[in-house]
């Protein structure tokens, strides 16, 4: 069956009344859960699994897929409005989304996020449809050395995430790498920096760090800067209108980052979080005005938003075509498949074409629903900002606590949230940037594991990173991305000097 016949089968499933109904239920539930800080796609899917018991597999899985990308879609809301990322994939969204909201452009920021999400989601579904069978070979071409090189490439971006002092950015990144080593080391089973405390055995969940460094630290700043409460009500929402110029500005990042996001989503282990960071950095690197990033840039908002949604569809490639869950979320998704008696894998496309193509076809529909449902909601969502400040602050704290508690229902995590909140606040006060910390935390752990896996495989021979073309080329890109901006600057200065 080729992709065309497949899509006809798929749309027959997706456009049946059952298909439409369950896509709709899925995306609504997904967005609502995703909007709450701390609750992301994993919780959303886990909550919905029992509901699918006894359902027909095709509509049930169409619904579960809707819950998944709906949650990613909705996750941007709290990042933009409250600087409290709901899921790890939307941390980068806050970098420019929150400043926009503070400048009184909350409505616009939400609209841009929705459009970019829709665009990323749709482009990646098209790619999923056309390339799923072929891409499964890309997904399996990455071994530990290539992952190490990919993470290294991501880490070189720290220099572009820093505002002001590069040394402070580096210190922040080193701290991030240090924190990620806490817990049981996967390669030896040794405890590192746990002080024998069971609660530290698994290390810190990403969400604790993200909500601590961003949401709690932000709350502290809000309390401290009492003077900035001068936004009037209509200023807070601002115009919803996304002008033609805005669209033009975001079209470049959206198109590029939809592809980047999709490819990174395909790689097991990379996923929406890493995709959104790399996309953000990518756009900042190639931008003519990189100084606008972090201060409410439209490009800086559109890039991670199209990328994280594209990565979500990308993650379906290894799941559907190989049966390999590339992330915690897709692992739970795999569980949802198994509950319904469907085994994803290389044979799914031939054994159960109505499910394979039905899910893909339903994603077109789901993305349209998401856009249509979300745009009219924006004015109401943005009202959150007109809540009196003391109340808003309490709400952010409450949602952060709920979000962290729902990770594993462990009170210890709440104390850690406060610890990282205090750290984040101190970092703000002494102007150490938080993004390098978070990036190093995300990439550092995987990089270390990939490095040590490679070393075990090669019996300690470093040549494993340059012996095959894939890791070699990634390392070269990493090297060039460090060197080229410096060279350009140097040339520019010389030219200026000549004039």
């Amino acid at each position, binding site marked *: 069956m080729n992709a065309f016949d497949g899509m006809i089968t798929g749309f027959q499933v997706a456009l049946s009344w059952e298909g439409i109904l369950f896509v709709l239920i899925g995306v609504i539930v997904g967005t609502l859960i995703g909007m709450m800080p701390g609750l992301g796609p994993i919780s959303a899917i886990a909550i919905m699994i029992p509901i699918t018991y006894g359902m027909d597999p095709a509509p049930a899985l169409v619904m579960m897929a809707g819950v998944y990308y709906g949650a990613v879609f909705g996750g941007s809301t709290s990042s933009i409005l409250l600087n409290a990322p709901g899921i790890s994939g939307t941390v980068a969204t806050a970098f420019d989304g929150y400043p926009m909201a503070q400048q009184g452009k909350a409505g616009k920021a939400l609209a841009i996020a929705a459009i970019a999400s829709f665009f990323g989601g749709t482009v990646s579904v098209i790619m999923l449809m056309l390339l799923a069978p072929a891409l499964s070979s890309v997904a399996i071409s990455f*071994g530990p050395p290539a992952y190490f090189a990919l993470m290294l490439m991501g880490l070189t971006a720290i220099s572009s995430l820093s505002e002001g002092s590069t040394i402070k950015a580096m210190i922040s990144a080193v701290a991030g790498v240090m924190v990620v080593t806490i817990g049981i080391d*996967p390669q030896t*089973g040794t405890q590192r920096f746990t002080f024998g405390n069971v609660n530290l055995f698994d290390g810190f969940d990403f969400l604790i760090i993200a909500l601590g460094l961003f949401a709690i630290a932000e709350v502290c700043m809000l309390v401290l800067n009492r003077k900035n409460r001068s936004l009037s009500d209509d200023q807070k929402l601002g115009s919803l209108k996304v002008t033609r110029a805005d669209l033009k500005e975001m079209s470049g990042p959206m198109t590029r980052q939809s592809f980047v996001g999709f490819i990174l989503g395909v790689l*097991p282990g990379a996923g929406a979080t890493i995709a959104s960071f790399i996309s953000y950095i990518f756009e900042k690197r190639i931008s003519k005005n990189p100084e606008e990033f972090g201060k409410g840039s439209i490009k800086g908002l559109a890039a991670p938003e199209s990328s994280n949604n594209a990565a979500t569809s990308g993650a379906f490639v290894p799941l559907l075509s190989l049966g390999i*869950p590339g992330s915690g979320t897709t692992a*739970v998704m795999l*569980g949802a498949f198994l509950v319904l008696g469907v085994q994803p894998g290389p044979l799914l496309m031939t054994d159960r074409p109505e499910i394979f193509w039905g899910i893909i076809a339903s994603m077109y529909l789901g993305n349209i629903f998401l856009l249509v449902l979300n745009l009219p909601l924006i004015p109401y969502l943005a009202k959150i900002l007109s809540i009196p400040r003391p109340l808003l602050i309490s709400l952010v704290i409450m949602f952060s606590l709920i979000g962290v508690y729902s990770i594993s229902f462990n009170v210890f995590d709440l104390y850690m949230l406060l610890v990282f909140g205090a750290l984040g606040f101190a970092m703000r006060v002494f102007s150490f940037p938080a993004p390098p910390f978070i990036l190093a935390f995300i990439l550092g752990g995987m990089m270390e594991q990939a490095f040590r896996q490679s070393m*075990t495989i090669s019996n300690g021979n470093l040549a494993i990173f340059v012996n095959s073309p894939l890791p070699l080329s990634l390392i070269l890109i990493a090297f060039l991305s460090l060197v080229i901006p410096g060279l350009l600057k140097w040339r520019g200065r010389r030219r200026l000097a000549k004039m």
Partner: protein
Amino acid sequence: MKKTMLTTILAASALVFAGCNSEESTNGETGESGAFEPSQNIEMVAPAGAGGGWDTTAREVARVFGETGILEENMTVVNKEGGGGAIAWAYIHGQDDSPYNLFVSSPPLMFVPLNGQSEFGHEDFTPLANMIADYGAFAVSADSEWDDLNSLFDQMKEDPESVTVVGTSAPGSMDHMQFVRIAKAAGVDPTKIKYVSDQDGGALTSVLNGSVDVFSTGVGEVVEQVRAGNIKILGITAEERLEGEVLSDFPTAIEQGIDESFINWRGFFGPPNMDPAAVEFYEAKFQELSESEEFAEVRKKYGWNEMYMNSEEYEEFLNAEYEEIEILLEEIGLGN
């Protein structure tokens, strides 16, 4: 003001406690005849997040218990994730003699404490019943030069550095130790086995693209890939061939002349000092569940094998397993 609030809270909690006590004494959990009958909701802890093996087993068991009416009281599944199970175990250990807090477990209940990552192990809990058995499988890429376990192990004896094994669990835990156990029985030096752990979902990928050589995992994880012709199974750790399409093609280690097996058992436990009457009650209920048609269907759906053991049999089995694993871990230098 503060003081009054504190007093109120104290008073309220005293009331709650008093309520609990009176309920326990009036409902008489252990009746005159000595039989136990639950009088409240039963909590079933899955010591992991949603979606995994423990969680699935706990949820299916709770569901079938309710649907068949074998258990009249409601059984609620609670996820307590963290420390590879250690957090949930510490929680259950604190329940002392409660007959209403059960948990599901499998070999990690031995591996995790033996690796020094949990204060509590199987001997600290009351085994109720074992329900199912699963087995390990050793997979290699379809174009691998090895066709059976012996050709793989021969190469490992000659040049142990040339073979890398990957699994999803930590060193010293299940995927690692099931391989070590079979390899050692075949004469491979267990201290020279190269094992890497990939907990980010890349283990199968690494075998398919040739980064590593052997994937040590559960039988259920490999069926689809074998059907698709991507990998082949050199051997499984069951004692006899399994039943079912594809599954029955997998050769056991024993039939290849390696006299060793490994069972990934899965069963249920209660707090340390559970009343013998309660143990008897649950034992009988789990047996009834295991023999029910509805649970047979669940086993079929997930490819699990029936392996019921009552509390006493279970305890003996666990002690024997524990001893063997302890020796093996010490031998490879991971023992505590």
